[in-house]
């Protein structure tokens, strides 16, 4: 009888279980279910914003060594990786006919020198003739005054004297001309010598050869580099920082550099220069960041991540940036007044790297705000506060 009664009423717990399960799913899903959220209290704090950019290691001073005029490369003395000193011979271009033209000019100069010597000798000869003519002329003039010779003889001597003086002037002029010729030839020779010197490529500074771009036999155009040099001590990171997040970027700020080849090392650095011209296409600002100590083996063109530390903002209320929401075109947070939910518009200031945002206006320390939520919130929506939403249903 007892067992029978037990059997008879055994359906009751089953029915209750079913009812409870049904009630649970109705309450848990659908419009009656509260939205689960995590809540934080607005705290007083300080936000130290950082700027983040990526860049490439670059040499502050790079030199492209090449000829000033087209020519064929004759010899290259150094190779990539070589250390060179200022003035060291790097490469030589084929002078082609320059040496022959210099020899020709030398020969011309020699001939001009002979011409000059002949002109000077002639000048001396004419001087001597002029002196004799002057004496004769003077004598004939006095003889003529004493009526010893005829007037025509006196005039002939006087004319002789005048001609001799003119011959002196002519000889002087031809000597000057020969001298001028010589100067011209010497200048021309100097020009050719200098032209030949430019065919020798020398290192402009102490540095390291980074590239040997042409081999002997190659014809180079004017301005084309045969060798590239850098000053290895002048490496810096050419950093690109999004314009929209570059506020506060200035020279002198401390920075941290992470090279792609050593991702776990944070190298100290400093913003050396902020370029006045920013990239209009990529909408990025350019800043040059130098290393405090240059790590050995840094390669040019290596990618680096740069974090620039800005001065900390003044103390004030801060909230996690996950709490900020956009609603009807306004930025704000969901604030909890007791259990009631309302949207409060806020004005935000600086954001720290950990996601803490400074609140300039709209909230005060101690306010309770929603940080994470599993769905969209509406004013006065039912919420259930949980510690973490990590295990929410997907």
């Amino acid at each position, binding site marked *: 009888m007892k067992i029978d009664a037990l059997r008879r009423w055994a*359906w009751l717990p089953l029915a209750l279980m079913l009812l409870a399960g049904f009630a649970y799913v109705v309450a848990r899903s*659908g419009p009656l279910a509260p939205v689960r959220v995590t809540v934080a209290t607005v705290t007083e704090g300080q936000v130290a914003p950082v700027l983040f950019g990526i860049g490439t290691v670059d040499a502050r001073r790079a030199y492209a060594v090449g000829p000033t005029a087209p020519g064929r490369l004759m010899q290259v003395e150094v190779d990539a990786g070589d250390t060179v000193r200022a003035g060291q011979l790097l490469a030589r271009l084929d002078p082609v006919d320059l040496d022959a033209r210099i020899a020709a000019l030398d020969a011309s100069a020699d001939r001009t020198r002979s011409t000059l010597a002949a002109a000077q000798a002639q000048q001396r000869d004419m001087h001597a003739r002029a002196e004799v003519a002057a004496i004769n002329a003077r004598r004939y003039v006095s003889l003529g005054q004493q009526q010893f010779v005829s007037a025509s003889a006196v005039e002939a001597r006087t004319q002789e004297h005048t001609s001799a003086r003119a011959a002196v002037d002519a000889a002087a002029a031809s000597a000057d001309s020969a001298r001028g010729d010589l100067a011209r030839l010497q200048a021309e020779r100097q020009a050719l010598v200098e032209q030949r010197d430019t065919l020798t490529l020398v290192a402009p500074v102490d540095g390291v050869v980074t590239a040997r771009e042409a081999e002997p036999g190659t014809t180079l155009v004017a301005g084309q580099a045969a060798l590239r040099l850098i000053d290895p001590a002048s490496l810096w990171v050419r950093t690109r920082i999004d314009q929209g997040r570059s506020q506060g970027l200035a020279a002198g700020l401390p920075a941290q550099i992470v090279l792609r080849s050593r991702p776990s090392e944070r190298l100290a650095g400093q913003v050396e220069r902020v370029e006045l011209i920013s990239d209009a*296409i990529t909408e990025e600002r350019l800043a040059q960041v130098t290393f405090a100590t240059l790590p050995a083996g840094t390669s040019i063109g290596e990618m680096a991540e740069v974090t620039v530390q800005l001065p900390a903002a003044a103390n004030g209320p801060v909230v996690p940036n996950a709490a900020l929401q956009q609603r009807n075109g306004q930025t704000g947070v969901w604030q909890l007044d007791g259990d009631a939910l309302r949207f409060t518009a806020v004005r935000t200031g600086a954001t720290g790297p950990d996601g803490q945002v400074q609140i300039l206006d709209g909230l005060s320390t101690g306010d309770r705000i929603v940080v994470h939520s599993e769905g969209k919130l509406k004013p006065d929506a039912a919420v259930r506060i949980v510690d973490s939403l990590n295990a929410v249903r997907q």
Partner: protein
Amino acid sequence: MISLAGRDILHAWSRFVLTGMGLGLLIGVTLSMAGIYRGMVDDAGALLDNSGADLWVVQKDTQGPYAESSSLRDDVVHSVRGMPGVARAANVTYFTMQVARGARDVRAMVVGFEPGLPGAPGELIAGRRITRSHYEAVADVKTGFAVGDTIRIRRHNYTVVGLTRRTVSSGGDPMVFIPLKDAQEAQFLKDNDAIVNERARNAANPALNRPGLPGLLEAITDAQSSNHNVNAVLVQIAPGLDAEAVAEPIRRWKHLTVFTRTQMEEILVAKLIATSARQIGMFLVILAVVSAAIVAFIIYTMTLGKIREIAVLKLIGTRNRTIAGMILQQALGLGLIGFMVGKTAATLWAPIFPKYVLLLPGDALRGFVVVMAICALASLMAIRAALKVDPAAAIGG
């Protein structure tokens, strides 16, 4: 008056409950199927909601960015911002890829967004928003990533700093949000071998590699390996304006295609998921018909199993109405248990589905009415059989 149905059910309650549960599981499957359909539609809606846009500006004469591919220059957003009625506009890129997670990979839609503008992730369920302009990611919880994990996309590693929920593509793939510039690069960046080959191909082309023009080859190679394209511009319009009125000048003067929210829903629901939705719908109809048939058979055989008792009832002079009422009540009871089991089961197993299953209360209510109607209809057949029974059968054997 004692409840004849209740007494009968209690008499053999275990069989009744088991039948109800079996029926319930069948109803659960039907409800889940409806939920899968709703889930697909909701995925499409979630995609639009998450973008936060009122207008989608895409390449002219395409139905991008979700249904077709669309490509715009990333400076188009500036001219769109200058159009009347546009409150905010932002570039966005979408591409679906396999994202490596440990040894395996997950299919995800990588979204390139600009922080604080339309297209950025909305509510987070853990972590924080992106604070650096590169190499940080916010991932949907369905990708399986946790805050602090590293995602490798193409060449770069991204740190997951926050998690979202219900941010999926129209195909149900979870989203990974990364900064726009990184996404542009990732979308376009080829592997190193391809880049090296491309350089060699350029260098081998005498038209590009001219001896008298140093620097030309480098410039061409640079131009080939950078990307200034995006897939769409998301626009939020100023409050109080009509979306179509803002869209029209952009179409006319900027020579771009613009979709409003209504048109985008139409594209997603009526075009993108139309075939799969019809597939599910067809299956849902068949399932409903099969369920109805099974309910009818169960109630019919249940009544036939009691045919002798009914004959006895008739013999002792029970009215037809009472007998019919008993069968109807039992059928409805069965339906009620079935519905409750089905709804519970569907809700419990919904999260296990790989894609989103949305169980709408309205669907449940409709399902309840339909289940009750089918049960009532099915009981008619049983009632007819019961009423036709000859009372003599009770003693005749």
